[in-house]
């Protein structure tokens, strides 16, 4: 076993605390049975979880966010994967410029995207509409799909598709046989990523939606008017779901890497 520098270990522990403290502090609060957000809580109970799951406003926001995130993720994954295939394997000036364009929403501040989408939506009369939000969220999820699926696509041997063709498969069948299966893990994990890009997005939602709240909007609005530990319960729920999904995405990615290495 290698000798470890104790200072390095201490540094490591501090970094982990720094990263996780804000997430973990809400856990005890969510289990408090007091009426206010306070830390540390004096009594424990499931009161705020019950409150969250029984409040129709919270539930409506949660399901709306899940719906929008699912739609945005499917749209971003579909469009993103087709873009990757359209861009092709070889880098050229055009494909470089187009990639930059697809990736732009990840670099441009969300508030600017929000402003643009808002003006456009109002002009077209489609603001305060879930479908518009799905499209806007798909746009900001797209860069992750293009980058993740793109890097997986370039690792797939292009002769696989040629082999399928010469053995009698048409172009679509060759793609489905040779390219799609090794690409699937990357597509799924990009989809999960795009899902959460949408699920926790606040700014665009605030600009675009008014009557129909998403979950982050509900949390935001709740915090502005009253402070109670429901938010902590929601946050813990949020963290658990996110962690689970990200773990699945990471496992898929690793499996894909293992397969490609073979």
């Amino acid at each position, binding site marked *: 076993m290698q000798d470890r520098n104790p200072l390095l270990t201490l540094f490591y522990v501090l970094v982990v605390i720094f990263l996780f403290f804000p997430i973990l502090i809400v856990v005890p609060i969510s289990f408090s049975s007091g009426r206010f957000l306070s830390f540390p809580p004096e009594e424990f109970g499931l009161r705020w979880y019950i409150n969250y799951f029984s409040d129709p406003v919270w539930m409506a926001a949660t399901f709306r966010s899940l719906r929008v995130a699912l739609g945005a993720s499917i749209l971003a994954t579909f469009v993103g994967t087709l873009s990757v295939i359209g861009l092709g394997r070889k880098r050229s000036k055009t494909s470089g410029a187009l990639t930059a364009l697809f990736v732009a929403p990840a670099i441009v501040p969300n508030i600017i995207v929000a402003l643009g989408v808002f003006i456009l939506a109002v002009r077209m009369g489609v603001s305060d509409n879930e479908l518009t939000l799905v499209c806007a969220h798909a746009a900001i999820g797209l860069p992750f799909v293009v980058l993740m699926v793109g890097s997986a696509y370039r690792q797939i*041997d292009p002769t696989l598709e040629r*082999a399928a063709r010469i*053995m009698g*498969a048409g172009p679509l069948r*060759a793609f489905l046989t040779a390219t799609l299966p090794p690409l699937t893990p990357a597509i799924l994990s990009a989809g999960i990523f795009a899902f959460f890009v949408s699920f926790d997005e606040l700014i665009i939602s605030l600009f675009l939606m008014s009557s129909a709240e998403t979950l982050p909007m509900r949390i935001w609005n709740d915090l502005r008017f009253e402070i109670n530990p429901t938010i902590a319960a929601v946050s813990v729920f949020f963290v658990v779901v996110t962690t689970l999904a990200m773990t699945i995405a990471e496992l898929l990615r690793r499996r894909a890497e293992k397969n490609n290495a073979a």
Partner: protein
Amino acid sequence: MQGSRVHFEKVTKSFGETVALTDFNLDIAPGEFVTLLGASGSGKSTALNILAGFSDATSGEVYTGDRPLTGVAPEHRNVGMVFQNFALFPHKTVAENVAFPLRMRKGARDEIDRRVKAALEMVQLGAFAARKPAALSGGQRQRVALARAVVFEPPVLLMDECLSALDLKLREELQDEIRRIHREIGTTVLFVTHDQTEALTMSDRIAILEGGKIVQIDAPEVLYDRPRTRFVADFIGQSNMFDLSAVTDGTAAVPDMGIDIPVSDPTAVAISIRPERLRVIPGENTSGLSVFQGVVEDETFFGPVVAQTVRLRSGRRLEVRSQRSGHDRLPHTGQTITLAFDPADAAPLVAT
């Protein structure tokens, strides 16, 4: 099964400014094993890709049998192909990989199973049907690729540098196996390689490509013994090449050797003599041979064979390869050596 005739007729291919094939003509008899041999960039893979349908000829036409192939998609050409990097589907088992071309041809299920089994047995991989390609060695993967390429009994089989990813021993094993399979199924094979040994050992005929053109196409033995140009003589095996004076009345001078030799080809400008065709002469009985002298400059001992570098009076050097049997008196480094060759062993070379 019977192989098809394959015919390239005045095929040219250019990529923008770059010309990959010019006036490429090649006629392959049914069941023949023809190798395209050339350095990278000589156009050999371009020719193969045009036949496979991955690339269109700029002009000219390719036929299998009597069927012109321009505009025919790869999946409708009924051609088998083995790729350099195997190109097995990693998520399919060995049996599923081999079954793929049959499934594309919509065969009956038990018929497919039977033929997959037969193909895998032919490459001695019957026990590996349920494995994924990742669980196989390089040689086994290439065998699967071979089984997959021939399982639907294509009349034409293409092989694109398909052994170059393997180490020497495996390569030799697979060369034998490919020859055996070729004999068994009788398909026409177009094999592409840059490895001259592979080409010499496997082919019925070898086409040497240079700059998008076939410079010579002949049986391996003819190609080795009678190269027609400096390029071919140099590309295949080792060769000593000497300029000739103009050929008059069937005779030409070899200035570097200081002798005259009979030359059959009046257009020859040089000769090529393989190192093993030169004989070391102790000094007697040289009738009918062309004899000349030099000084041994260097020698390399290979066991049964000794290779010597000899410097001629003109300063030119040549290579001699001698069997050691019966040559106990081989001159050593620094000594004068008398060499002779049968003029019939000197291949006349024409200018390109």
